[in-house]
Every structure is written in C-alpha cells, then in structure tokens.
C-alpha cells in the first residue's frame, strides 16, 4: 500500500517537475528576450545616450488643488505666471550666472546666498526658483540676454490666488516656499520649488492639495540643451476640497464685524456640526503675503497692536460672562441643588467671606426663580447657586458642553481655554482654591476662559437638547449621529425655555433684538476686562460710555434659531464692545436675518 502510494507520488512529482522546468525555461526566455531587446535591438539608442549625452530627469510639479466653499464657489485657486529658475548643473558657475543676472534685474545678496545654499542641498539638475511672477519688462530683458545667463530658465508656473481676499484669511492661511526643515516632510521631499501651506487649512490639507509629482526624462547635450524627451510621466493635480463655510455668510459676518475693532463671529449648523461662518477681525489679505516682496506687509501685520494673524475664533480667549449661566443652572438642576420653583432674593449684592459680590443690576432683581435668573441674567442668584454646587460639578458640566476642549478641526494653535478646578489651580498656580472664586466662576468670570468656537459648540449642544455636536470645517452629512450628554434630559427644556425668554419676553436682556419674522433664543454676556473698584462702581462715570476703549467690557451673545427644532447656532464676541445686550445681540439678529433672507 505504502509503496504503491510512493510510486504514485513519484509519478505525479516527475510530471510536475517537468511542468516546473517548462515554466522556469519560459521565464528565463523572457529575461533573455528582454536582454536581447535592450542590449542588441535598442543598443544604438543607449550607446548614444551613454556616449555624448546626459540623461536628465526633471520633476513635473503638480498643480495645487483648489478649495471651494460649501456651494462650490472657489476660494483658493491658481493663476498662470512666469517664474525665473536656475539649474545649477547647467551653469558654468552658479555664482557667475547670478552675478550676471544682477546686471539686468536687481536681486539682493541675501537671496543669492540662499540660492547657493539650496543648490548644495538638492540634486544638481534640480531647478531653483529665483524670482516669481516676473513682469513683462523683466521677461524681455532676460529673454534678450539669454546668452549671458547660462542655466537660467523661464517657466510657466501657477500662483496661488485667494479671490475672497481677507474674508478667508484665517481659515485658509497661505502658502509659501518650504523651509529646509519642511523639505524633510515625506510628501514634499526633493521638490524644493513646491509651495506648501504654512498655516490654516492650506497647511492642514497639504497632503491632499499637493497632488502627485510627475517626471520627465530628457536627453540633454553637453551645453545643457534638451535634445529630446525620452519619456513623460505627467504630474497629477492635487485634490479639490470643499469646506463647510458659506461664502456669503462669511462675507456678511465680516461686514458686521468691521463696524468694530476686534472680535469674532462663528455660525454653526446644529444638525451637522458644520461651521458655516468663522470670522475674526482684524484680518489680513493672504494675496499680499504671497506676493513678493512682502516685507512691508509682514511688518505691518506683525506690528499691528491687535495682531491680525490671530484667528480669534479659535485662538481668542474670553471670559464667557453670563453666557456661562446655562451651564451653572444645568449643574444645579442635575445635582438637585435647586429645582424649578425655588427662589432666591436679589437685592443687588451678597456678602460672602467679608467681601461683597455685586449683581450687574445695582437695585436688585427681587425674587428670582431659575428661569427668570437666566432671562434677566441675575448675578446674585448664580453666586448663591454656584456656592451650593461647588466648582468641581460646574467644571464637569462645562466640559460636557465642550468648554476647555480642543476640537482639532484642522487648525494649529487652537486654544484649549481654561475650565478651572481645584486640581487645576493647585497644579498651574500652586495655590489652593478660594471659595469666593467659585462664585466668580458661576457668572463666567475669573479663571474661566473660552474661545468663540467653544461658545458656539456649547450653544449648539444646548439647542440640540444635549446632543454632543462636534464641529467640523468640512462638509458633513445631515444624519450624523452624536452622543448625548447623560442625566440632563429632564432639565435641558427649562434652559431652552429660559433662553427663549431672554429674547422674546419683556425684561429679557436681549428683548430689544427680538425678531417678528422668526424665533430665536439666546443669552447675552458682558465680560469684565478690568476689575471694577468700589469707588468706580459708586461713581457716575461707570455708567457712562466714555471709559477707555481697552478698558471697556467685552460684549458677547450666544444664540440659536429657530427656537423650535433649531438649525443655526451663533456666538458673537466683540472685544471691548460694551454690553452683550446693546452690541452683540443685535449683530446676532442681523446675521440671522441674513441667513433667512439668503436662504442659507
């Protein structure tokens, strides 16, 4: 039995060995045929290549992808221009060529040094950009004197253009030549001419926008002239990317903001978390940063006292002021410190630990329940409430609503803000927590700091009855599922009702901004910039508007519309704008008007 199997196996194996032999033979034949092709048939071609000529491989640079707003309007694109390049390999002497060039067009010593430095870093047949976007006069000069300038090349190129100028400055950022450090990035290595995004989405999306480099193999003679192309492997344009911003709303936000000196507006689609508008002033024009020479413009930006390069929507840190009261109220309700009917009497101030804590309304609000305390923004009520809740539970609720969190939506330098706790203070300030600081935090002052983006996310989460809306700057589908914040289901309705009353009932702090055509809810906030002394409080000046601009309060408003089944959330912060009710709420209303009018 075993022997018969053995014999059978030997037969099968011999047969297969024969097949394997045939298979190997055919593979070797293919190799032999290939060698015959290269070494005999095409030999003449390769011989000439090898003898007199050089093969040069040039990178075909990819065209950067475009960026569009949510409706397909182009907000970053490319324009054809002529640039001047030098290929070190084709010059007799790089320094000499550059010196000759200086006779025709001026360029400074520092630049010359940089080019020579870069030429040592990259392969010697690589072109290095000398000047971009040449005007006609220079183009003609260089064309006419070509013989004196070996190694120089004019090349069609693309220049980045931002058609919306400053309106998308902070969102898009800008592009620029890579630094020597950038050249180590895997996706741009060995492409020294490639502009890459330096900040904003241009930087975040570099890998998608850059596209793929192609290359072209050319035969060049000894003087560097291209004799013929051997093969071309075209480059691939980078991806076009759409973002969630609505160009019209973005522009209108700037229109509103520019009536003031500094501030931010962020509008969020509550259903999807998409950011529809994110405006920050002062802003800058990225086209002017890209355009060389840009030295003067840079200096202007860097010396500007209000730092236009800062994206206040995500980098500005503000005390939320009274807009924080919803969080404190929710913490109180969740932990059953108060209920709907419990009241607190406000006579304009309370005393705690031999210090007076004032309500913004010096005369006092009288007897307040929680709903009215939000509606009329009674400070005393929230002093008392936060005292009973304690800082830890307030901080916990604040974090549920997205304060003290980085959303990482695509921007570097996004600020985290501060949601203070005892542990935080011990670690950061090496001090223990004072009970009075809980009271101050309870009205959104003190250590508590938030960004406008965090405020709009907080508002959206309240409006969505506790769904943890996650913001995004990219387009997102309507049916995105969000987690729910636990144990607030029974209380969130009350908060939304109170926010409705803020706008729509008499005595509500934003009642003057009420709309007849649609409903919206919200909460005003006025955050102190300067500590108010007792003397100032008693003096008449405090009431008047002639306080120094930089000492004026920040004006805040957060809100959403429509009040039932809300779709849009907003946060408005006007630096030193006075009060939330008088400055920020009317802006929010005008933005909502615009949204309905333009059917955004």
């Amino acid at each position, binding site marked *: 039995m075993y022997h018969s199997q053995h014999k059978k196996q030997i037969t099968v194996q011999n047969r297969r060995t024969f097949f394997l032999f045939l298979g190997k033979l055919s593979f070797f034949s293919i190799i*032999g045929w290939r060698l015959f092709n290269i070494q005999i048939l095409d030999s003449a071609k390769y011989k000439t290549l090898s003898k007199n000529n050089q093969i040069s491989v040039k990178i075909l640079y990819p065209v950067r992808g475009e960026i569009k707003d949510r409706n397909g309007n182009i907000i970053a694109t490319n324009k054809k221009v002529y640039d001047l390049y030098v290929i070190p390999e084709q010059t007799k002497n790089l320094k000499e060529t550059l010196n000759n060039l200086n006779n025709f067009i001026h360029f400074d010593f520092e630049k010359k040094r940089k080019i020579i430095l870069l030429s040592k870093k990259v392969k010697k047949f690589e072109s290095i950009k000398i000047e971009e976007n040449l005007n006609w006069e220079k183009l003609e000069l260089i064309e006419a004197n070509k013989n004196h300038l070996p190694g120089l090349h004019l090349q069609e190129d693309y220049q980045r253009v931002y058609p919306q100028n400053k309106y998308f400055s902070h969102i898009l950022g800008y592009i620029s030549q890579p630094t020597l450090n950038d050249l180590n990035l895997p996706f741009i*290595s060995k492409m020294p001419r490639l502009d890459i995004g330096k900040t904003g989405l241009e930087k975040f999306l570099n890998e998608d926008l850059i596209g793929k480099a192609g290359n072209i193999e050319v035969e060049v003679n000894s003087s560097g002239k291209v004799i013929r192309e051997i093969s071309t492997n075209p480059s691939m344009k980078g991806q076009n990317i759409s973002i969630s911003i609505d160009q019209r709303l973005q522009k209108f936000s700037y229109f509103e903001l520019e009536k003031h000196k500094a501030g931010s507006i962020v509008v969020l689609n509550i259903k999807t978390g998409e950011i529809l508008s994110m405006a920050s002033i002062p802003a800058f024009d990225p086209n002017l940063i890209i355009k060389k020479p840009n030295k003067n413009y840079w200096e202007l930006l860097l010396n500007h006292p209000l730092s236009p390069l800062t994206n206040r929507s995500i980098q500005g840190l503000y005390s939320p002021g009274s807009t924080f009261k919803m969080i404190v109220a929710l913490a109180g309700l969740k932990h059953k410190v108060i209920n709907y009917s419990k009241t607190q009497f406000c006579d304009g101030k309370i005393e705690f630990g031999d210090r007076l804590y004032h309500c913004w309304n010096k005369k006092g609000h009288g007897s307040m329940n929680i709903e009215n305390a939000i509606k009329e923004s009674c400070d005393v009520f929230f002093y008392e409430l936060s005292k009973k809740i304690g800082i830890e539970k307030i901080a916990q609720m604040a974090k549920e609503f997205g304060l003290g969190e980085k959303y990482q939506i695509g921007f570097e330098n996004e600020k985290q803000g501060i949601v203070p706790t005892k542990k935080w203070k011990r670690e950061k300030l090496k001090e223990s927590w004072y009970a009075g600081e809980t009271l101050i935090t309870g009205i959104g002052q003190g250590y508590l700091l938030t960004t406008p983006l965090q405020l709009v996310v907080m508002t959206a989460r309240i409006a969505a009855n506790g769904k943890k809306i996650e913001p995004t700057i990219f387009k997102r589908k309507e049916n995105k599922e969000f987690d729910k914040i636990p144990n607030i289901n029974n209380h969130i309705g009350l908060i939304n009702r109170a926010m409705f009353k803020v706008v729509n009932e008499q005595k509500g702090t934003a009642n003057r901004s009420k709309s007849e055509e649609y409903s919206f809810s919200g909460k005003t906030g006025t955050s102190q910039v300067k500590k108010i002394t007792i003397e100032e409080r008693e003096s008449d000046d405090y009431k008047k508007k002639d306080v120094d601009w930089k000492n004026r309060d920040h004006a805040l408003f957060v809100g959403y519309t429509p009040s039932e089944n809300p779709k849009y959330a907003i946060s408005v912060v006007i630096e030193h704008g006075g009060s939330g009710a008088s400055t920020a709420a009317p802006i929010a209303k005008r933005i909502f008007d615009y949204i309905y009018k333009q059917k955004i």
Partner: protein
Amino acid sequence: MNFSKIININVLFLFIVILLSFIGMAALYSAAAGNFDPWSKKHIIRFTISLILLFLVSLIDIKYVYKHSYTLFFLTLLLLFSVEIFGIFGKGATRWIQIFGVSIQPSEIVKVSIILALAKFYHNLRFDRIGKIHNLFFPMMIIIIPFTLTVIQPDLGTSLSIFILGVGMMFIAGVKIWKFVVGLSIMVISYPFFWNSIKLYQQKRILSFLNPESDPLGQGYQLIQSKIALGSGSLTGKGFLEGTQSYLEYLPEKQTDFIFTLIGEEFGFIGTIFIVFLYSLLILIAFYISIKSIHIFGRIISLGVALNLFIYVVLNMAMVTGLMPVVGIPLPLLSYGGTAMLSVMISFGLLLNVDLHYNYQKMKP
C-alpha cells in the same frame, strides 16, 4: 560525519558555483573602479567561509538533517521574531540582527529552513492523505508565519520570494491544483482582516514602502540608468573595467541588487546570457538530483533549492531590466551581501547532501 564521501561530490555543480562567485568578485572589483576594497575582498572572504559551510552541510548524514528539520525551522523563526521585537523596541524598521558581532538577516536564512520543514512534512505524509484539511493547514502555517513576519518588516522582496517558494513546493509535493486556486481566493478575501490586525506603525511602514512618491525621481531614474548601462554594453560589452562609472553613481545599489547591469555594460549580451546560462545549469543539475533521489525528502529539498535560486535570479533580473518594480532582491553569488550568500550556499550544501545520499536506504519508506 564521513569525509570520504567527498570524492563523490558533484564537481560540475561546485565548479559553476565557484565560477559565479569569481565573476561576482570581478564585478565588485570593477564597481569599486578597480579596487579590491571595499567590496571585492570581503565578497571572496564570505564566499570562502560559505564554501566551507557548504561542504560541512553536504557531508552530514541526511538522517540527521531530516531529524532536525523542524527544530531548525523553529530556531530561524525565532530569529525572525526577534527582529520584529527589536523593531518595536529599537529604532523602527530593521531586517538585521547581530549574532556574535555579525549582522544577519534572518529572513534570508528562513527560506532554507522552510525548504527543510516542508520536505520533512511531505516525506512523512502518505500521498493519498496529502489533500486532507489538516495536512494542508500545517504546511500553510510554515509558509504564512514567516511570510507575515517579513511583510510587516517590511521586506516585500523577501516575503514575495517566501510566498512563491512555499506555494511552489506544495505544488511539487503534489497538492491538487484547484486547492491553490481556493487558497489564493481565501488569501485575497482575508486580506482586510490581516491589514486591520497589524499595528498602525506596521501599516505605515508598508505604505511608505509601497508609496514611491517619497522619491519622485526615484525608480524611474534608477531604471533608465540601469538600462543605459545594459544597453550600451551591446553584444560584447565595453570590456572589463571600461564601464562608465558616472551612470552607476546614480545607482545606489550598484554593488548589490544592480550588479547585473554592471556585468551587462562591461561584458555585453554575451556576458549576461552566459550568467543566465550558468544559473540555468545549476537549476538543471538540481532537477537531475531530484529525479535521481529515491526518497521524497531528497526530491523535495532539491526542487526547493532549485526554486529558491530561480526566484532570486528571475526577480532580480526582471527588476533591473524594468520588467518589475524595484523590490530589493540580490543576485546570488554575484551581489555583495553576506546573508544571501550564506543562505544560498547552505541551500546548495543541502542539495549536494541529497546528491551524496540519493539512494540512502534508511530514508526509503
């Protein structure tokens, strides 16, 4: 060990092996512009050491080889594992391991032990039971474990060789052809599971390997230089030491994976075809030894060794002539590189061992 067996050793095979390694030495001498340093001298030293090992391996009683086949497989597998572990704790991707101060690339060694392990397995197996599920599972593990370990290194050239080698040997052993079709389909289907089960940094390593964009000039440039070297060699070549080094300056692997192009430039089509002929001869002798052998163990080892050599040669030549993307496979005996030389010579030792024990009666079933 009976040294007197040495008189029966296959002299033709040995002669071709020595001839090839001397051609390698000459090519490396030329690659260094007429210098024995840095490659040529070391190459011949390595060859000498490997040749001694070849003799030792060929003289061992085949019974012992058979007895320790699995042990050897596990030991080499352990080496391969340790590379992966050093890869985690060390500085990222590595294929090398230090043993007694010598750098070894376990993925090369493991190929030989796969041949041994599969040969032992099929020797033990009655032919009518070869298709049983559990009898398919075991050899598949012998292939898949080292294959997976080399993929995640990532050493795609070697993992590809391991895969072809393993599948080829199962074919030789007599596994039904439709089972290969099924097996291949299962592999394709289970690919996403494999991908998800490996670590993120391993995924990244593999992706960065597969993504040549990291060097946009990269392979196209290397290849055109390689073709110019081969093509300008024409029929008879430019002559020894007459190759234009300037082109090969652009070949970072001229002394290892691209050594064949240098031979093509200096010795022409005649030279390259002669090399192909020498390798074919080695493979032919291995086939002859296989058919001659009366025991399955020897037959499968011989065919495995032949297949292993064939894979090296064809992948390397296909790569340098532009028939296949550059994956990093040396040309045995010609390329500079220690472990591949050692691994191939040990496998040749096994082949000659089978030749010396072709009618070993104790191995008969």
